[in-house]
């Protein structure tokens, strides 16, 4: 699938990212998913090649590229490891909040180190839907929390948002039993504990970080869908039953056609939304892409049959990672309610 809006530089970038993902990350994905060990060394390397400051201007040692470039980066990484792509997204979101809303001093102090990966950032995910039992204090999940040097999260006070970044003293509680996204070093954290202690900073209006976060989640979903489709397509040609490749059966062909339609449609929406200034476009693309990645991975498992259910084959991990992503972006039905509301107000 090609899209008119992709420039030559985007295509070249895609090739580079693909190469990095396949050579650097792919060999360890399955083992790390099992142990839940984060891919810290790869993240550092990714920083060295400029992947951790995609949106950061060159003045601060970043790559100075556009949002579509970041989307493509994240998508390519997610094809191999959604969890690694999530780590990269979290880091880049923190960079972007500082870049767009931080003071000149903050930018000078933090951005060069972040953009090159000398300092790794974690980020609190705001799932929008975070039910709590009455009386309980809210906890946030911090992506990269188990290993990052600093982490940021947004708190709301009297309707005003503040972005707080603190030094990570590595004392966060690790969520060792995540169903998916297992190598992103996800930790839980109670924002009430987030005092600054002289080694952090606050940005008063973080701007529209939500919308960036979600479009990157959507980009991960696109990577998951596309990769699930590609794996299923090749598997269906190699796997013989009834003396024929299963790709020769009508029902498998229907599944593959459904998978690729939804995957391509998701990608087009996400590319278009990342080049658009209209926030609702990003909302729509995110719901569509994340919800469809559930469908696509589910059908991918189906194409693999029993082999889709075991950890020796890639679909099992994509199935679990896609579900985490859908929740991270706020549960599809809930977000549809919000979209409907915006469309009619």
């Amino acid at each position, binding site marked *: 699938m090609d899209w008119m809006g992709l420039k030559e530089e985007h295509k070249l970038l895609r090739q580079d990212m693909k190469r990095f993902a396949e050579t650097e990350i792919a060999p360890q994905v399955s083992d790390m998913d*099992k142990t839940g060990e984060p891919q810290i060394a790869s993240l550092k390397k990714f920083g060295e090649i400029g992947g951790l400051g995609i949106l950061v201007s060159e003045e601060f040692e970043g790559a100075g590229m556009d949002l579509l470039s970041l989307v493509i980066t994240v998508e390519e990484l997610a094809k191999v490891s959604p969890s690694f792509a999530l780590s990269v997204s979290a880091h880049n979101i923190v960079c972007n909040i500082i870049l767009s809303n931080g003071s000149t001093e903050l930018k000078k102090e933090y951005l060069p180190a972040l953009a090159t990966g000398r300092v790794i950032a974690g980020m609190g995910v705001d*799932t929008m*839907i*975070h*039910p*709590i*039992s*009455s009386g309980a204090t809210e*906890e946030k*999940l911090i992506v990269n929390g188990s290993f990052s040097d600093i982490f940021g999260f947004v708190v709301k006070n009297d309707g005003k948002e503040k972005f707080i970044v603190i030094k990570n003293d590595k004392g966060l509680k690790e*969520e060792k*039993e*995540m*169903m*998916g996204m297992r190598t992103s070093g996800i930790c839980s954290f109670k924002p009430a504990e987030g005092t600054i202690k002289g080694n952090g900073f606050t940005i008063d209006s973080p701007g529209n970080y939500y919308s960036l976060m979600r479009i990157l989640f959507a980009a991960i979903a696109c990577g998951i869908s596309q990769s699930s489709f590609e794996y299923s397509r090749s598997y269906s040609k190699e796997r*013989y*039953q*009834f*003396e024929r490749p299963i790709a020769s*059966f009508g*029902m*498998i062909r229907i599944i593959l056609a459904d998978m690729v339609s939804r995957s391509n449609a998701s990608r087009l929406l996400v590319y278009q939304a990342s080049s658009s200034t209209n926030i609702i476009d990003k909302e729509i693309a995110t719901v569509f892409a994340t919800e469809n990645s*559930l469908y696509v991975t*589910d059908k991918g*498992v*189906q194409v693999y*049959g*029993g082999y*889709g*259910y*075991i*950890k*020796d084959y890639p679909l*099992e991990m994509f*199935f*679990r990672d896609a*579900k*985490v992503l*859908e*929740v991270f972006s706020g*549960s*599809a*039905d*809930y977000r*549809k*309610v919000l979209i409907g509301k915006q469309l009619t107000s």
Partner: protein
Amino acid sequence: MKLAEFTDKHNAFREEVREFAKKELLSESTQIDRKGEFPWHIINKIKERGWLGVPFPEKYGGLGLDTTSYIILVEEIARVCASTAIMIAAHVSLACQPLYAHGTEEQKEKYLIPLACGEKVGSFGLTEANAGSDAGATETTVKLIGDKWIINGNKRFITNGTIADIIVFTASQDRTKKTHGISAFIVEKGTKGYEAGKEEDKMGLRGSITSELHFEDCELPKENLLGEEYEGFKVFMETLDGGRISIGVLALGIAQGALDYGIKYAQEHDLNGKPLYKFQWVQKIVADAATEIMAARHLIYHAAMLKDKGEKRITEEGAIAKLYASEIATRVCYKLHSILGEDGLTRKYPMERFLRDTKLMEIGEGTSEIQRIVIARQILGK
């Protein structure tokens, strides 16, 4: 839900199983999934109650109840712990059932009785690396040499594999005859040349065992043939006819478990200061789930009750019930999972386990695609 056709005995049995599941299993199920170890302590309690042989006559070590009762058992156990439920399902409908339907009196005496009364564990070996949906493509071979069967080959994805004492399996006597060359046999753990192999690392059902079986010049006495020579395929097709509703009811039980949990969760949690259950998007998820689950329950028990009324084959009804129940269960679990937000993401809450467990039901004992082929053949002709 109440089905008009359940008898008082059925309802009482369901109550008994439900009570057991609540008392003995509910607090264990997360740990069973977490450890990924077979829950012997639970199975021992289930065995004491005679529940490993529910639908077989007492003279064969069973409880002498009907198929419907057995299906009730699997539903209520799956509602709490699907790993335990699939162990029971494989043992009863895949190992005991073909012995009951096709075994000689001696075979029933020797194998069915210890299985049905729970002294021994059974399993069923049909699938191979190159014979999944196409189970007739069995590459495991058997030769009659003197008065012994010599078996060679490998099975894959066998539930209860490493823990089974008695295994019913297929092998081909003549591969040129394809499905007509297959016969069914019984092998016991410890037989020379037979060994269970590697266990699979799975998405879900992690407390259940799925393993390979290896046969290397394994010698079996002549009387270990199950059913007639060259009729192994028929034996297995019939077994799967009945087996399908136990996979269907596993899906139903899991979906019901997810709904139970989703309701409780929605009642006890708030979102932005408003009780979750007051949101229409939550009401829609719960109402749709309840509707689909009820429809699935009707299909499953309809098939089970037909069997109890003496229907010999329930091919169409069983396939329809399994297809529908397993597909809605995945959907229902996906949707209910999303009510929990972040709480759905770890083992602290059971919802993500329901989702991981239920996906197998669209694959095991015939994938959804194979069910559609079976149904279409019944309706459209072969």
